[in-house]
C-alpha cells in the first residue's frame, strides 16, 4: 500500500476540502462551460515500426493508441513569417499551442501525455491542425502550477506544429 503523507501547508486557513472544492469548480468551469476539446493521440511505441538507427518512421507510419478527448485551456500562439534556414523559402510558420488542463482529468481517464505524442485541435468543422508535444508539462512543481503553493493541480503542455508528412491523424 502506498504511503500517503498529509499536506498540512496553509493548514490554518486552507485545507484539502478547500482545495478539492476550488479545483472542482474550476474544472467544472473549464471543462463544462468553456469546453475546449483537444484530441490526444498517444504514440504506440511498441507497434510503431521505427528505423533501427534513427528511430524514424515513414510517412503515415505512426501507430497510436485510441484517441482521447481532453478538455482544457487552449492558447494558440501567433504565427510568424520566417525562412526555412537560409533557403529563402519563406513561409508563415503556425504558432505553438499551449494547452493547460487539470491533472485530475488525466488521472480520471488514466492517460498520460509524453513528449512526441500528438494533439489534434479542430479549428473549424473540417480543418484540424496537429501538434507534436514538445513539453509535456510533467514537472509541475513550480508555484505557478500549484494552488497557492498548496498542491500542483494542473499542467501546461506545449506542442509545436507538425507538417502533414510527419503526422496527419491517420
Amino acid at each position, binding site marked *: 500500500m502506498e504511503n500517503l503523507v498529509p499536506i498540512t501547508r496553509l493548514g490554518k486557513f486552507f485545507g484539502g476540502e478547500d482545495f478539492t472544492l476550488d479545483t472542482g469548480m474550476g474544472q467544472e468551469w473549464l471543462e463544462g462551460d468553456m469546453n475546449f476539446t483537444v484530441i490526444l493521440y498517444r504514440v504506440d511505441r511498441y507497434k510503431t515500426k521505427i528505423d533501427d538507427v534513427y528511430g524514424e518512421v515513414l510517412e503515415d507510419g505512426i501507430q497510436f493508441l485510441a484517441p482521447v478527448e481532453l478538455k482544457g485551456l487552449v492558447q494558440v500562439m501567433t504565427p510568424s513569417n520566417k525562412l526555412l534556414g537560409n533557403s529563402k523559402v519563406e513561409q508563415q510558420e503556425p504558432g505553438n499551442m499551449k494547452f493547460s488542463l487539470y491533472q485530475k482529468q488525466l488521472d480520471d481517464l488514466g492517460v498520460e501525455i509524453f513528449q512526441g505524442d500528438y494533439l489534434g485541435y479542430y479549428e473549424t468543422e473540417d480543418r484540424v491542425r496537429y501538434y507534436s508535444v514538445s513539453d509535456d508539462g510533467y514537472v509541475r512543481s513550480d508555484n505557478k502550477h500549484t494552488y497557492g503553493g498548496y498542491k500542483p493541480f494542473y499542467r501546461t503542455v506545449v506542442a509545436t506544429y507538425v507538417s*502533414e508528412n510527419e503526422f496527419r491523424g491517420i
Partner: protein
Amino acid sequence: MAFPKQVKPTLPLVPKKTLSARREQLLEYINEDGTYLPKSVLHADLDRGMLDFVKEDLKVVTAGKIVPMVDIIITTQNWSQYVETALFVDLDYNPAPPFITVVRSPEVKYGTNPSLQYTIPNRKQFYYASVPTWNGNEQGMDIYTIPQPVPVDINYSVKIICNRMRELNQLNKIVMQKFSSRQAYTFIKGQYVPIIMNNVSDESQMSLDARKYYVQSYDFTMLGYLIDEEEFQVKPAIQRVTQLFELDTRVLNKKRNQFPENPDEFMNNFLFVVGNTTLVDVIDYTANMVLVGTENILSYDVYINNDYYGSDVNLIQITTNDTLRIQAFKNDYSYESKITFDSKLV
C-alpha cells in the same frame, strides 16, 4: 585473316547532293538549330542549367517517392515560390517537407574557369565557322565569328528541407558520388559547364519550442561563361556565281548558201577600162539589180545568157548561174567608164 585495311580513295569534298536536293539539305541544316552559331548562354541559362542539374542528377527518392524540388530560383518576388511549390504545400500553403530548393547568390563574379583565364582585349572576334550559302543564284560562304566568352562564377546552395535523417543521407550519398572528383558537368545549350562542390553545412532547426526540421546546404560554384549572340558577327566570304542559260537543241535544216554572205544588199560596179566595151560575168546569186549611176556611158545593152535583155535598163532581174553580158557605148573612148548597180538578193 587480318581485317582489310580501310582505305578511303577519295575524300568527299563535294557534297553528294546537288542542285535542289543540296539546297533543301542546306535549308534543313539551317532550320535544325536556327543558325550555325552557338546559342546565347547568359545568366538565366546558367541558372536553368543548374536547376536542371539538381532536378535530374541529384534526384532523391525516398520511400518510393521523388523528393520534390522548387524548380525556380527564388527571387524577391515572393509569390513566385508559392506558385512553384503549389504542388507540395500543406493546409497552410507552406511547402511541405521534404523538398529541395536552389538558392543563388545574387552576385556573379568574374570567372575562374581555367580554360578562359587568358585575357584578350577589346572583345576581339574569332573565327568560329564557315557556312555555305546559296541564295538561288550565288553560292558562297559566310564566316561566323564570335568573341571570347566571358567567364563567370555563380555560387549556388542546394538545400534540402526535410524531417528525416534518411532523406539527408540519400541526398548526401548522391552528391558525394556525383562529386567524387569534386566536379560535375551540366549541359547548357550545347555547352558543358563545370560545377564544383565547395562545402556542406547544416542549418537545421532544432529549437525545443519550435517545429524541428533539417536543413542542409550544399554549396556549389558553377564555372560558367557568358556567350552573347548580340556579339556574334556574320560576314560574307568568297562567292562563286553560277550563271545558267538555255540552248535550243533542236536540229535545223541547213540554210541555202548566200553570196555575198552578208549583207543582202550590195553594190556592183562594172568598170570598162580603156579599150574594153564588153563585160561578161556568171552571176551566182539571184537578185534584182537596180541602176544607180553611170560614168562616161552613152548607152549600154544588156544580154542574159546571150539573149538580149534591153538597153539602158534601170532594173535587171538576174538568176543564179545566169551569164550577164553588158556592152557599153562610151561618150569618150579614151577614158574608162563605169556602170553601178545596187544588187538586192531575193
